[in-house]
């Protein structure tokens, strides 16, 4: 490990800094510009620059700022996921915002700041920085959820999300305080080293602290029983923001949970496996069962995101380095196909104004290409081969089986089967049902160039990761090993 604890090491935060600089530009210079599309361009450019820095840092593990920031392949891989999510959401937003006359630079600035918060969160192994990163991630999200101030649903969504987020933060902070009380440090590796002494002296501080931290993050990743806010918030928020919500904070939460529990609380991991087991099972089950009854596609995707959090909890339960890599790969795949699914939802919503499943009827005859992409993303969400969803699930399940979680995997497979039903409903509506009423096929679909790019990138990702997973699996495996 070269340059251990170099005090000021600005290189390792360059990806975050490029996002922050772009957001400052958006807030200061861009409002003066006439062409509003420049804000999308600046955001995407900063995402690209950030990706470049990550590429340059790959395989160079370094730490800085007195051990407050650690930069390994694990965090770089997660950062790539966040950047893809951010870039995708920016691309989806353009058409959506223009249509509603809300194409403002603040929107993109908030999105970039939130992404930088996620990146800070995963790049630290200190609970204090993790907490501040979480707050930097969350605050802009509350605002984004309520960005359409005149829309009652959007405001409701923001209020609910804000209160739930505040509760979660309180739990998390109290947990961190208890862990500090038990071990005398907030640094994860030092927590691990002092686990033995802490357990001898006073068992409760550490265990209850860890449990409260788990609750705090369970709110963020929407695990059962802390998922009740999800459907309302996701439905009310602007659709591109929902796409951002359903991937970004979830990926950040899972990545940080993996790091905290495998590194920091490695000494008490055994006491938590049963809790993870139950949480994973119930999260999958509630997500999938409630999704069956939804007629609103956005709400259905909200429940489906709960179910996916359940599959990811499976990796947390297994806790091996293979499971970590499988979770990372799954998150990468998920960010592609979920973003793609939301892209289609956004397009349909832009055109019809609702998300009811009936609006998808006859989509195949009106816009065959759109229907084909819809099918691709839905198959991927359901986990059919040859899509990315299949490979992702396959690796998570096999890692879990190696960790002797056979029954949980059986439950997960059953859940996937249930999920096929609701994922196929939009496809069935699009291909096999006729639209009622006189909606003619002459309605021209106008897509902005960014939207087209988004669909192409996400579908290439969803198919590419499914057909040629080896390269990415190797990267994920390297990241998983690095963390251990």
């Amino acid at each position, binding site marked *: 490990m070269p340059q251990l604890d170099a*005090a*000021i090491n600005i290189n390792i935060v360059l990806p975050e800094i490029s996002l*922050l600089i772009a957001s400052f530009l958006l*807030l200061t210079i861009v409002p003066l510009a006439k062409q509003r599309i420049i804000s999308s361009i600046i955001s995407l450019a900063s995402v690209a620059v950030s990706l470049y820095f990550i590429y340059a840092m790959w395989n160079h593990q370094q730490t*800085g*700022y*007195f051990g*407050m*920031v650690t930069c390994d392949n694990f965090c770089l891989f997660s950062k790539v996921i966040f950047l893809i999510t951010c870039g995708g959401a920016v691309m989806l937003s353009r058409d959506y915002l223009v249509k509603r006359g809300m194409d403002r630079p*603040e929107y993109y*600035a*908030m999105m970039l*700041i*939130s992404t*930088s*918060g996620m990146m*800070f969160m995963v790049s630290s192994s*200190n609970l*204090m*920085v993790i907490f*501040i*990163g979480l*707050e*930097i991630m969350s*605050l*802009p999200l*509350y*605002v984004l959820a*309520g*960005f359409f*101030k*005149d829309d009652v649903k959007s405001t409701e969504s923001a209020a609910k999300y804000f209160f739930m987020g505040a509760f979660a933060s309180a739990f998390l902070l109290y947990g961190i305080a208890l862990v500090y009380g038990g071990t005398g440090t907030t640094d994860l590796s030092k927590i691990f080293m002092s686990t033995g002494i802490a357990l001898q002296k006073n068992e409760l501080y550490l265990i209850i602290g860890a449990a409260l931290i788990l609750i705090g993050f369970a709110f963020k990743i929407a695990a059962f029983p802390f998922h009740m806010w999800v459907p309302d918030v996701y439905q009310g928020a602007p659709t591109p923001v929902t796409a951002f919500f359903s991937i970004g904070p979830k990926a950040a939460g899972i990545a940080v949970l993996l790091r905290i529990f495998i590194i920091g609380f490695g000494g008490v991991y055994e006491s938590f496996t049963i809790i993870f087991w139950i949480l994973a099972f119930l999260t999958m089950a509630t997500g999938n069962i409630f999704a069956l009854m939804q007629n609103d596609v956005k709400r259905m995707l909200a429940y489906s995101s709960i179910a996916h959090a359940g599959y990811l909890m499976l990796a947390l339960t297994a806790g091996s380095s293979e499971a970590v890599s499988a979770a990372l790969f799954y998150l990468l795949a998920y960010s592609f196909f979920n973003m793609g699914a939301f892209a289609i939802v956004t397009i349909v919503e832009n055109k019809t104004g609702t998300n009811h499943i009936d609006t998808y009827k006859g989509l195949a005859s009106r816009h065959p290409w759109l229907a084909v992409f819809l099918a691709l993303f839905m198959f991927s969400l359901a986990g059919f081969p040859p899509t990315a969803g299949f490979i992702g699930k396959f690796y998570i399940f096999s890692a879990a089986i190696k960790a002797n979680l056979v029954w949980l995997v059986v439950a997960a497979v059953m859940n996937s089967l249930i999920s096929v039903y609701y994922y196929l409903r939009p496809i069935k509506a699009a291909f096999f049902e006729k639209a009622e009423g006189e909606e003619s096929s002459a309605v021209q679909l106008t897509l902005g160039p960014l939207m087209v790019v988004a669909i192409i990138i996400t579908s290439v990702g969803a198919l590419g990761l499914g057909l040629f997973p080896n390269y990415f699996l190797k990267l994920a495996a390297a990241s998983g090993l690095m963390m251990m």
Partner: protein
Amino acid sequence: MVITVRNPVGSVLYFILSLLAQSILYIQLSGLFVAAFLVLVYGGAILVLFLFVIMLLNIRHADLGPEAAPMIKPMAWVFGVVLLAEAVWVAMGTKARFDGVSENFGSVPEVARLLYGKFVFPFELTSILLLAAIIGAVVIAKRTLS
């Protein structure tokens, strides 16, 4: 106490009280600088700002609803007495000074060394957090331009 009263002005005053108590804790740990800062910045500046905002909002008594449930007061007495007894019991039991605190805890150089040394990264991150909060507040509060 902060959350027991219906009137937000009362809550803020209680909050100031709890901060003063907290600063006394710091004084007992001989951290005079931190204690003074707590009183000046939190008690003095931020909470007085709260007070102004609440006064500006101009809440009438009718909006606040009835006072808390009747059971609360006796309960509060019970818990208060238990807490006091506990505190006295702990105070009797412990030695006069904590061992874990270093000699120059809370002195100006020490605070500066920690803030710009070991904790410089979280410190800087906090500034980003505050910036995000400001932008968010402006976005939400701004009137829609038409």
